[in-house]
Structure formats: C-alpha cells, structure tokens
C-alpha cells in the first residue's frame, strides 16, 4: 500500500505539488492524467525520491517517513520499495540488456551472480527479449529499450512501479509493444502508477484515473466516470482537448 499525505514540492517560489493526498492499494493500477507542467511527473519522482519533496509524509509498505526528516537510510529504503520507468528509458549505457536487469539484484540485493542472472533471464523471457540478452542499449530499438527499462523495474520486486510517460519518446511503431507489456503486468496485479497521455490505456487498464491540475488532485474515479461523466470543468476541458488529438 502507498499513502501520500499532504505531499508538496516547491521549486523556489513555484508550487509544483500543492498538498497531494493519495492512497493506492496493493495491486491497484492508477493512471494520472493532466495538462503539461502540472506536477504529474514530479509526483512520481517524489515517490521515488528522485526529487526531494518539500513537505508531507509518505508510506510505502510498512515504512512511513516525514519527507523533511527522512534520513539518508530511509530515503534509500524508500527508493528500494519503488521502481521507476523513465520516459527516455535511461538504460545503463555500459551494460547489456541482461546486465541492466540484473544490476539491482547483484548490487543492491547482493544476490549471487548465478541466481541474479537466472532471474534476469526469466524476466527477459517475460518481456519477450530473451534473444537480446547480450545486446547493448545502443543496438536496440526504442521499444526494446523501454521493455528492458520495464524489466529492470520488475527485477526490483518493488511494491509499486512508477511509469513516467513510458511511451512518449517512442516512435509510434513501438508504442503498442510497450503498452502491451504494461497491460500484461497489470493483469498480474502489479501495483502501478502511470503518468501517460495514452487515453485508451487509461480507459482500458486503469482501476482509477486521477486528474491533476495546478499541483492538486482535481478529480479521481474509475475510468468510466472520468472519461464519460467528468464533473469538474477543468477535467472536461482537458479531456475535450486531449481526446481531439488522441481519440480513445
């Protein structure tokens, strides 16, 4: 379970997150939508402590921290309970697909080599890239790289995987294979927080859709409600604009 209470993030005077309260159950798939620059990515980055939140408390599993008082060890522990999938894949450029996935197990979890690579091979199998085990990122397509990025997140065994616009950098031809893998994970009830502009994914896969604007949660609910019966005028306005360019 993930619980955020009054989570906020300021960059200087700019308030990017303005008191976010959010509880996500184990196995829940939450999709976050909203206009650009409204703090969606920042929210995910705060949960993984890639950004230091300004105030609030955060719970992941059995660990709760006041973000201001979190020790270095607590921040590390929080990071290890969450996994991140980056928009630009951010695979380790000096490591093969297999090594990218095994890295967490080898270095952080200190598994013996054989066991770590065994597990990494299983994951490569699941993401359909068993034949790319020894390929370096530079030699893979965007879609393949992002699937390895997801595989790397899967290997962490984290409570939640955070997806930060995972298909936004992809050429259109690779989008489906990445969304397909995410759907597969969703069907296995992997807890996920997904920031995306793929409205059809949100509608078909999400348990809950959250609309964020101006650093606040404006509206949330099941996709049927948000997409077909939005209450807030800002939600209506956003959906009208985005569905015009990305029809569901």
């Amino acid at each position, binding site marked *: 379970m993930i619980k955020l209470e009054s989570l906020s993030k300021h960059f200087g005077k700019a308030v990017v997150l303005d008191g976010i309260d959010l509880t996500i159950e184990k196995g829940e798939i939450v999709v976050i939508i909203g206009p650009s620059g409204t703090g969606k990515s920042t929210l995910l980055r705060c949960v993984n402590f890639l950004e230091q939140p300004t105030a609030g408390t955060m719970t992941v599993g059995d660990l709760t921290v006041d973000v201001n008082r979190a020790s270095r060890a607590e921040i590390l522990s929080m990071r290890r309970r969450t996994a991140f999938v*980056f928009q*630009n894949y951010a695979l380790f450029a000096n490591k093969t697909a297999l090594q990218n996935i095994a890295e967490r197990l080898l270095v*952080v979890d200190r598994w013996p080599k054989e066991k770590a690579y065994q597990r990494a091979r299983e994951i490569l199998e699941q993401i359909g890239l068993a034949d790319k085990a020894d390929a370096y990122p*530079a030699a893979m397509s965007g879609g393949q790289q992002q699937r390895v990025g997801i595989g790397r997140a899967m290997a962490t065994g984290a409570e939640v995987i955070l997806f930060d616009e995972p298909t936004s950098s992809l050429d259109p031809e690779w989008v489906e294979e990445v969304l397909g893998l995410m759907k597969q994970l969703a069907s296995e009830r992997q807890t996920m927080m997904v920031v995306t502009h793929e409205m059809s994914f949100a509608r078909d896969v999400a348990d809950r859709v959250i609309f964020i604007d101006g650093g606040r949660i404006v509206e949330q609910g099941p996709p049927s409600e948000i997409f077909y019966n939005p209450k807030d005028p800002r939600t209506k306005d956003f959906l009208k604009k985005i569905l015009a360019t990305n029809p569901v």
Partner: protein
Amino acid sequence: MDVLNVDYMLGLVPVLLTYLPLTLQLAGVGMVLALILACLFAVVRVLRIPVLNQLTIVFISFFRGTPLLVQLFLFYYGLPQLVSALTVIDGITATIMGLTMHFSAYMAESIRAAIVGVDRSQTEAALSIGMTNGQLMRRIVLPQATRVALPTLMNYFIDMIKATSLAFTLGVTELMGATQKEAAGSFLYFEAFIVAAIMYWIVVEMLSKLQHYLEIRLNKAYSR
C-alpha cells in the same frame, strides 16, 4: 665530423635496455598512483565535498601551476631540509611522488569533466533502483566516464614516460641518466641520445597501439 658511429650505437642498445625497466617502473607506478589520486580528487570535486573540495582546488592549482622540475627539487632537496626525517626520500621515491602529484592534478580535471559529461539520466536510473552514491559511481558513472577520458589519460601517460627523464637530475640512473653517462664517457653525444630517443619513441608507439585497442573495447557498448 665523421659519419654516425653505427657500431657504437648498436653496442649501446643492450646497455641502455637494462635501464629501461626503471624508466617504465617510474612511469608505471606513477601512473597507477596518479590515477587513484586523480579519481579521488575528481569525485571530491564533482560531489563538492566541503573542505576537501577547497583543499583539492588548491592542490590542483599548485601542481598544475608550477614546473615539474621545480616540484621534483622541492621533494628531493627541499623537504629533507625542513624535516630531517625525510632525508630517507631517495631519488626514485621523490620522482614517483613528483610525477604522481603533478599528473594527478592534470588528470583530475579531465576525469572530472568526463564524469560531469555522463548523462544525468544514468545517475537517476541508478538511484531509482536503490544504488548508493558509491555504487552508482563505481558501476555506472566511472565506467562510462573512462571511455571519454581514456584518450586524454593515455596522453598524460605518454607525457609521464617522457617526464621520467627528469629523474636524472635527482641522480637516478634511468634511461636518460644512463645515456648521459655513456655519452660523457664516449663523447658520442649524438649517437647516444638518438638511441635513447628511439627507445622512448618505441615505448610510446606501443602505448598508442594499446590505446587504440582499449578504445575499440570500450566503444563496444556504444556501437550499433
């Protein structure tokens, strides 16, 4: 002026070759120590570790800003005068100290630039899977920075091999010192020094080959 005394030159080769190991040892030990020191300096500078950062800046400024020969004389002749216990420093030790500190100052800056040049997303990805700063430096950032810094570092190594010739001013009989002695005995200065020059040249050429091979290896991950 007669033509070159080729017989003398050929005879000199095996004599001078016996001093080549010391030259390579000075450069080899100097390079390893300089690399270690330079990596530490670079990490201190990149992470801006308080106090150490300022000390490092001063250290780099001094050792880049003064001639190597002056530094060697400071270590060999100067330090023992200040602290009598340091008279144990012999010419070889003083040379290695001088080479290490002088070249670590230069190399720290190129390593730092290479580290800063590694894409920020690599660091974030390493943090996201829960690595500590030390782990991400060792496993992700430094290996990628190495590839960028390698050509420059090899240049410094080549420079260092040639700089070992200054050790003869501290009474160390390495390749240059031995050549000097041989030439003074035979008065065949040109022959003696051209043999020494060719020896340095061959060693450096072999290093260039090694560099080429290393670059291909390190670039493996980045080619399609």
